[in-house]
């Protein structure tokens, strides 16, 4: 998305070059690198929004899941990959603006990115995409494939002995989530107005985990809820005198939620609701009935 927006600046940049973005002119580049071709077209850029992360996840996941990398090791190598990308994109030679990143955007589809109406449209689009993402995820979760994925989570090797190719199922959900992240990024860039390699930092992945923990693990609504709640808190915190303490507050929030609300906001609210509906304390959750005649 950033690349599309850069190309839309055209000759209005500081250096007035109709083709090359400012940072390239600054680096004395004469030609547009091949991977920037096509990004002046919106449909092409949108295709890439899905394709680039999807393909990267597919190739990476293909190797990782086939070699049965799981759990902590998988987290570590995905983090290592993003860290490698961070370092690579910081280099000016990479052709993505180095540590300044891409910014000073002007238009999107001919509309001024900073105009109120454009911003409202982008925000509405974000809501639409959130709902679309939710529906897609929901469709996956309730399908038999979703059941297979839960089975893999709980007893991976058992699933394999039933004849499911565990690596393919992991690859599918990994790639779908990468495409969703691509859409999220494409909506983020024009609304924030800048994108630079620091977004690759591991802290972002950790923050996402915190959203899910706060909202409620194991649910789709919880993940979205946590994203909204944590980011709302972030907005309040980072704009006041408490700004320097935001990271501490975030850490404290994570610790608090893990200890006192292990099911997150959603899970805790559900439990509370259940209790209210059945105030008589005699109804403990249904105890597993013992097998008949067991000693």
């Amino acid at each position, binding site marked *: 998305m950033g690349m599309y927006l850069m190309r839309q600046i055209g000759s209005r940049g500081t250096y007035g070059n109709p083709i090359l973005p400012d940072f390239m002119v600054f680096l004395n580049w004469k030609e547009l690198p091949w991977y920037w071709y096509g990004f002046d077209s919106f449909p092409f850029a949108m295709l890439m929004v899905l394709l680039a992360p999807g393909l990267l996840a597919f190739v990476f996941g293909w190797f990782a899941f086939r070699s049965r990398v799981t759990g902590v090791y998988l987290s570590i190598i995905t983090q290592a990959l993003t860290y490698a990308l961070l370092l690579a994109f910081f280099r000016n030679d990479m052709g993505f603006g180095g540590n300044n990143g891409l910014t000073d955007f002007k238009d999107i589809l001919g509309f001024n990115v900073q105009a109120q109406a454009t911003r409202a449209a982008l925000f509405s689009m974000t809501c639409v995409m959130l709902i679309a993402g939710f529906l897609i995820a929901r469709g*996956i979760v309730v*399908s*038999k*494939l979703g*059941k*297979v994925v*839960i*089975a893999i989570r*709980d*007893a991976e*090797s*058992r*699933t*394999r*002995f*039933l*004849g*499911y*190719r*565990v690596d*393919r*199922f992991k690859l*599918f959900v990994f790639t779908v989530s990468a495409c969703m992240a691509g859409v999220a990024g494409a909506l983020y860039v024009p609304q924030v107005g800048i994108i630079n390699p620091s977004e690759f930092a591991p802290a972002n992945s950790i923050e996402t985990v915190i959203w899910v923990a706060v909202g409620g693990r194991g649910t789709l609504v919880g993940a979205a809820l946590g994203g909204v709640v944590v980011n709302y808190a972030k907005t309040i915190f980072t704009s006041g005198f408490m700004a320097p303490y935001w990271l501490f507050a975030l850490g404290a929030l994570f610790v608090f939620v893990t200890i006192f609300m292990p099911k997150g906001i959603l899970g805790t609210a559900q439990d509370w609701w259940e209790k209210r509906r059945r105030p008589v304390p005699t109804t403990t959750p*249904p105890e*597993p*009935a*013992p*097998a008949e*005649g*067991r*000693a």
Partner: protein
Amino acid sequence: MIASSPGQLTSSLLYLDGVSVSFDGFKAIRGLSLTIEPGEMRAIIGPNGAGKTTMMDIITGKTKPDVGTVMFGGSIDLTRLDEAAIANLGIGRKFQKPTVFDFHTIEDNILLALKAPRTVARTLFWKTAAAQQKRIDDILGIIKLGDARERLAGSLSHGQKQWLEIGMLLAQDPKLLLVDEPAAGMTDGETAETAVLLKEIARDHSVIVVEHDMGFIRELGVKVTVLHEGSVLAEGPLDQVSANERVVEVYLGR
């Protein structure tokens, strides 16, 4: 040692010959040879650590043998395939420690095991047909969990989990079932019912059962193979092997 002639290879459903595997220098299986005929039910007994579970690991692709032949249906080399491919050939397995999907309902456990295409696309767009639903209901009836279908499998007792896992095997409808200690942790009553169920299953499937419970083995009334230190010590009807001096010494006599 039981000699297996090459002629047995083509007629047999499962053919193991000269199989050895070692873990960090410890030989868990040494020169194991075993043949299972189509439709046969075989009981495997032997002391703890004899290699019974490891043998199942080898057949199902979890462990690769260091040397030896493992052939299925006369021509398929199982040592070259992975777990999923072997499962799809029609080899199902019940684990020694019952493993079901605790966070799925009992019905979903059966659904996941049900014989059906296992690809990503086919499971994503899966619709359970009426005939398949009927099969699931039948199996739930056989394993006596029909009334509990909506309950999470994790809430079942040990014995019920064993039955659920046998139900999952039935749903897979494999050609060969490997059943590791199905009666462990069951009462005498449950054990007897399990023997009846397995005999029922054996009418149209080949089955290998590992058990320590001699009463159960006697109930099955099939050919018995005694494993000891990773190879076959004796083979034959239960009365014959239980009269074998070596078998009494290493296993039964204790």
